[in-house]
């Protein structure tokens, strides 16, 4: 559709001159095409550049025999041995705990906004969800630090990290679930009401199952987003080179925290581990991303 004359099959073959496009208009049209295409290419460059860098520099580490099954316990900074399973564990457990807390609250809040919310409270809630989505992770971490560690005297721990991650996950889960619930047609709700099913059971047993795959997709994207968060782990938990299974006490590694602490390691092995951990993190995030987009194809929502 680059010109206004392309579909006029029933016009005379020789176009009247008033229908041809002046040179300057055609030039502007061509130039805009070139420019927007260029913009897209520019946007893709950093993605490819980052991914290629991480894969090229991280590959040697992740194919090492000890990478996935060992920790760095007892490994000297200059040694290339050891692995990151302690950090993988930390990343996953922190995300898991955050998910367990954020998902019920997030789905509850979305149900409130879509099914029950009316008036000023609902408007305020919706507004605050947007604000929460914009709260920087360092601020979320500081808040957990101020409220739980400074004031309540809780020790630094992986659990504190999870609490901060809850704040970062919530808006993503809420917005996504909201969108899915709104896609469920009202006629399904109405026919459930007409069967004498109370509203809350209609929501739990008819509406939520219908929106299920979309909701899970949203949760997986939220998990993918928080697993790379570094600010909360910097503020809320100490680094450990050994495995610590206890999320409620002690230092615990995670992939971002391991990368950050190895930044202080001037040896070649430091950079080896940083990029290895970066690639590992990207692989884990990609698993969630791809899982999410596969799942999003199985929607029960009728057209």
């Amino acid at each position, binding site marked *: 559709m680059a010109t206004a004359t392309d579909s006029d099959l029933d016009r005379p073959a020789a176009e009247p001159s008033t229908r041809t496009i002046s040179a300057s208009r055609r030039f502007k049209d061509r130039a805009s095409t070139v420019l927007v295409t260029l913009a897209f290419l520019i946007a893709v460059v950093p993605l490819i550049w980052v991914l290629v860098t991480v894969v090229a520099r991280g590959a040697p580490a992740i194919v090492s025999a000890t990478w996935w099954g060992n920790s760095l316990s007892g490994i000297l900074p200059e040694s290339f041995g050891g692995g990151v399973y302690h950090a993988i564990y930390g990343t996953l457990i922190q995300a898991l705990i955050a998910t367990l807390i954020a998902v019920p609250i997030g789905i509850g809040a979305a149900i409130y906004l879509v099914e029950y919310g*009316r008036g000023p409270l609902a408007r305020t809630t919706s507004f605050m969800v947007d604000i929460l989505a914009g709260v920087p992770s360092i601020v979320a971490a500081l808040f957990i630090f101020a409220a739980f560690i400074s004031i309540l005297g809780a020790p630094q721990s992986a659990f504190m990290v999870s609490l901060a991650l809850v704040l970062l996950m919530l808006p993503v889960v809420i917005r996504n679930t909201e969108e899915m619930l709104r896609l469920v*047609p009202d*006629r*399904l*709700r*109405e*026919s*459930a*009401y*007409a*069967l*004498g*099913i*109370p*509203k809350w*059971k*209609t929501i739990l*047993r*008819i509406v939520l*199952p*219908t929106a*299920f795959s979309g909701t899970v997709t949203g949760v997986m994207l939220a998990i993918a987003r928080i697993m790379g968060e570094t600010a909360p782990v910097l503020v809320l938990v100490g680094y450990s080179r050994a495995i610590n299974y206890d999320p409620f006490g002690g230092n615990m590694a995670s992939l971002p925290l391991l990368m950050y602490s190895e930044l202080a390691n001037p040896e070649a092995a430091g950079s080896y581990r940083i990029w290895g951990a970066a690639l590992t993190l990207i692989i884990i995030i990609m698993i969630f991303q791809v899982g999410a987009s596969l799942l999003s194809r199985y929607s*029960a*929502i*009728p057209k």
Partner: protein
Amino acid sequence: MAKRIDLKDVDIYYGAFHAVQNVNLTVTPRSVTAFIGPSGCGKSTVLRTLNRMHEEIAGARVDGEILLDGENIYDRNTDAVAVRRTIGMVFQMPNPFPTMSVRDNVVAGLKLQGVRDRKKLDEVCEASLRAANLWKEVKDRLDKPGGGLSGGQQQRLCIARAIAVEPDVLLMDEPCSALDPISTLAIEDLIADLKTEYTIVIVTHNMQQAARVSDQTGFFNLEATGKPGHLVEIDDTEKIFSNPTQQATEDYISGRFG
């Protein structure tokens, strides 16, 4: 089982908009009552007030009395959920629950009301599907998704679902308008069977259908758009279609309507 419905001085509003004015009518048990009239005259609106579905719309309001066997369904002690257990509804678009199998769709109402007994559920499932003339077609695919059936089958599935909770009254809002002629015929036959046990109120834009299935027909009209709709007259179907009292009805029936 089947119950009688009386509407007394019913006025219906959507916020400030007065949608339906001063409706008085009686629906007798074990009969089919059809509502006809031009689109927008408030047929669906009246139907939805009969089981308080109306309340699901923001700002919607009903004045007057709607009595089910003499009991006002809008009484403050009456629970809308319980009203809907007694008065079932079938909608214009077939809408089986997409996550449920055929069987689960039929017994959804009972299950979600807390019936656990597997044997009872299976019995009700079969009985309802038989009553909806659907059993033969789906008995081998009870565990398949309800959304996989044809449009006409889906609509009969929805009717089976509605009668599985053993309502006293069945409301149908243009149940055939999304269906092909053959499925429409199947549903009309079904309505004739069902009226031996239920009180049925059906909205239809198809006058032949009203003539075929109903015992009593109510004609709704409205003076102009923006004005409230009202019940012009309600009488035996034969009388309405052969010798209506009102000129407006006569005009509408004979197709002379605007």
